[in-house]
């Protein structure tokens, strides 16, 4: 077998021309539809992180120093400076600076009717970056303190940013379920809080959820990274009631 080169025969080109003509005709039947303004606005809303106040000026200055001015490559804070940070400033560092890269297909693009969907997974909190191993380890090892700082920050801003939600899932902070439900019920706007509740149930293999229709659709064999269920009152209530039952049944 030989790889085709520029010396293709004329009949093949003619055949491809016919094929192309047919394909163009077939595709012209549709027209492109842009996501509605509310869908686009919700996409932006989903991606917003919460910026913690603890030592923010100092942490921003440290991050500015480690960024390579020439090529914007990713560099972590050196270990000595990292270890010297007090816990609340380390928390700020983690919430505004991810040290590792995210791969090509990790960043969730905007989609049609995003504001009417409850997704199975969260978008990437740091665009083309993600937490490094030492950052993930910090979150897990300092879980109680981090949860406390997140609650304190959320109670001030009345919003749980994407970075906070990602941290809660990373830490498996199921103890925050009542707090998250109370927050969600304030305006019923941030469907990604419902996603966090479902991720808690999935990651802890909560059986009533694992055998549900929602689970199959969001995490089953035919699911993908953009799988969703439609937002409606029934789905909202079902997710919350299941999450409460899961929380109450924790050992």
């Amino acid at each position, binding site marked *: *077998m*030989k*790889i*085709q*080169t*520029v010396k*293709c025969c004329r009949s093949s*080109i003619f055949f*491809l021309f016919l*094929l*192309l003509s047919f*394909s*163009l005709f*077939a*595709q*012209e039947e*549709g*027209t*492109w*539809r*842009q*996501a509605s303004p509310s869908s686009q606005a919700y996409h932006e809303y989903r991606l917003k992180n919460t910026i913690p106040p603890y030592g923010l000026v100092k942490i921003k200055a440290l991050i500015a120093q480690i960024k390579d001015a020439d*090529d*914007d*490559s*990713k*560099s972590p804070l050196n270990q000595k400076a990292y270890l010297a940070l007090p816990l609340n400033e380390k928390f700020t560092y983690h919430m505004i600076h991810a040290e*590792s*890269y*995210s*791969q*090509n*297909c*990790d*960043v969730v*693009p*905007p*989609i*049609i009717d995003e504001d009417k969907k409850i997704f199975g997974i969260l978008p990437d909190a740091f*665009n*083309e*970056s*993600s937490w*490094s*191993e030492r950052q993930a380890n910090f979150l897990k090892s300092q879980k109680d303190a981090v949860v406390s700082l997140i609650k304190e920050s959320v109670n001030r801003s009345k919003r749980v940013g994407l970075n906070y939600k990602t941290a809660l899932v990373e830490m498996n902070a199921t103890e925050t379920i009542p707090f998250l439900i109370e927050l969600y019920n304030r305006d019923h706007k941030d469907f990604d809080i419902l996603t966090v509740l479902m991720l808690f149930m999935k990651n802890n293999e909560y059986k009533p959820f694992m055998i549900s229709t929602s689970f199959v659709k969001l995490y089953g*064999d035919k*699911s*993908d*990274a953009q799988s969703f269920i439609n937002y409606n009152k029934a789905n909202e209530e079902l997710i919350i009631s299941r999450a409460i039952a899961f929380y109450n049944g924790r050992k």
Partner: protein
Amino acid sequence: MAGSKILLLWVFSLLVQQAIGQQDTGFVKIVQGNYLLGGKTHQLNPLRKVHIQTFYIAATELTNHQFKAFIEATHYITDAERLKNAMVFEPGLDEFKWLQDSTACWKYPNGKSRGGIEDKMNHPVTSISYSDARAYCAWAKVRLPSLDEWEVASRAGASTLYFWGNDVEKIGEYANIWHGRNHKVADASDGYLYTSPVGSFKPNAYGLYDIYGNVFEFCEGILITDPKDRKLAYARGGSWWCSKNACGFFNSLDIGRVSPHASFSNQGFRVVKL
């Protein structure tokens, strides 16, 4: 008995695939014309008509063999070697999780502990960044395809999600992807855990191999969503890591994005003649 025959046939087909993969690259001519690209609901890649000038694109992804020639001639230091922050994979990780490995670079795509490329010189080069790919192109007097050129080449005249239609189940005939349900358990059901030799799977109608799967292929271009404060690199076609459940980017529609200096073991490139 029937089972052992099937097993023998499977092993034979893998050997044939390996043999096919020994070939070097050639270039395929894509003729100038108006092409319809994008999708009806895709917000980053909208349905539109574009005019493309004639270009010549490599039939295969750039190999370790070709990249080695560049390194030997120029003593270029890749981003992974300079920054020691390449991202590698090993089975057992959660979805979308990768490991940072200071020993990984194009010579050891998944780190020294997971082996080198000595017997993989006809595999696509990986663990290089967009910045490295551009450096190679400058030396070899070639260039990366534009986002639109890549899509025209990948579609080979088709208007569907894949160049053969919309049936994802046929992906195994044309592409080295991840067939496992998740990445917790190793998947080499198509013969390859990581990359495969270039040209191991069936080509598209233009004669382009591995246009989907094997490695994400860097392209040139910008999107309307590009941030003002930083440069992004784009890559298309999915990779050996991509699965139907975690990252279905092995198609002609989706566009991946990554830091221009990020080095992953599922990133590579295909060149276009100047």
